[in-house]
């Protein structure tokens, strides 16, 4: 799966997956503090089998977002998630301190 998808591809995929009858959720970075690796507005699209496209954190929290997204697809209720990007992870990707991100997850319906 492409990791360098542009925002175009991500939102197109969200539309195409939904039209194909899949359960689909869209995650969006709505706020960041500190050195968050992906800017506000970044998207991740997830289908009901856990396939995903895009990125909200450069890999740190995608797993957790995908798990929560499966819940959102089932319940239909949007959720806001907050993550602290661990200092160690932040250091590995070349950031001097940890960051915090808030991610809004909603069902495409």
């Amino acid at each position, binding site marked *: 799966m492409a990791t360098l998808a542009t*925002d*175009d591809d991500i*939102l*197109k995929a*969200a*539309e195409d997956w*939904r*039209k194909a009858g899949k359960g689909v959720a*869209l995650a*969006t970075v*709505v*706020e960041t503090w500190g050195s968050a690796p992906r*800017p*506000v*507005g970044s998207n991740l699209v997830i289908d009901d089998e856990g396939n995903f496209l895009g990125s909200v954190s450069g890999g740190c929290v995608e797993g957790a977002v995908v798990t929560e997204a499966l819940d959102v697809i089932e319940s239909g*209720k*949007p959720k*806001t998630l907050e993550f602290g990007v661990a200092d160690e992870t932040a250091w590995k990707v070349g950031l001097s301190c940890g960051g915090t991100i808030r991610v*809004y997850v*909603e*069902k*495409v*319906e």
Partner: protein
Amino acid sequence: MKLDILKSLNAERDARRAAVVVTNEATGEQRLVKAADVARDPLKDVIEKHIRSGKSGMAEDTPQGKVFLTVHVPAPRIVVTGAVHISQALAPIARLLGYDVTIVDPRTAFATQERFPDVKVIAEWPDVALPPLGVDHYTAFIALTHDPKIDDPALVHALSRDCFYIGALGSRKTHGRRLERLKGQGFSDADLARIHAPIGLPIGAVSPAEIAVAIMGEITARLRQGPQKAPDAPLEKTLEKAS
């Protein structure tokens, strides 16, 4: 997100028009605001500000409470007539700033891919090259050949479009003569006031690379500040206003 909103959003993006999704996180309420509808939107001011900066973000204390704005703005483009020395310096700067660059020059000795690696070069006259490019609001247009046979028809095309910036190289005298010719083609003073000339911010640029910096500075100002602020207001005046 409702599939209808997503479909409309993707359609706006395909058509290279700005659009903003307004989401109330607390209620889950969501709507799409297309660029054409911003002026009559209750959140007009904050939406305009976000479209101009191209940045998504939270907006507190709006008439509709705390909302999140997801901003979708097309990638800006630059179309240049003149595969000249300034263009050679300008192309890499513009690419670094995130613009798609197209160079148009019918003189085949100038318009070569070797002189302009990594950008689109079209060795055709403007009347052939420009119409298929779809010059739109997110396009900056600059005329750099010094040759009215090439620059004039290109400027006529740019003036007929909604590009956010039009600039033309040449001294005040050269530009004065250009304005006379364009008036003869039926353009009003208001139309012609859209052309930035002498081109670029007044930074005393001398070399082609410095002129390219001055032009890209001016284009950045028009992209981020919109058309109403005078680009050449003296620095002292600007500082006075700020304090």
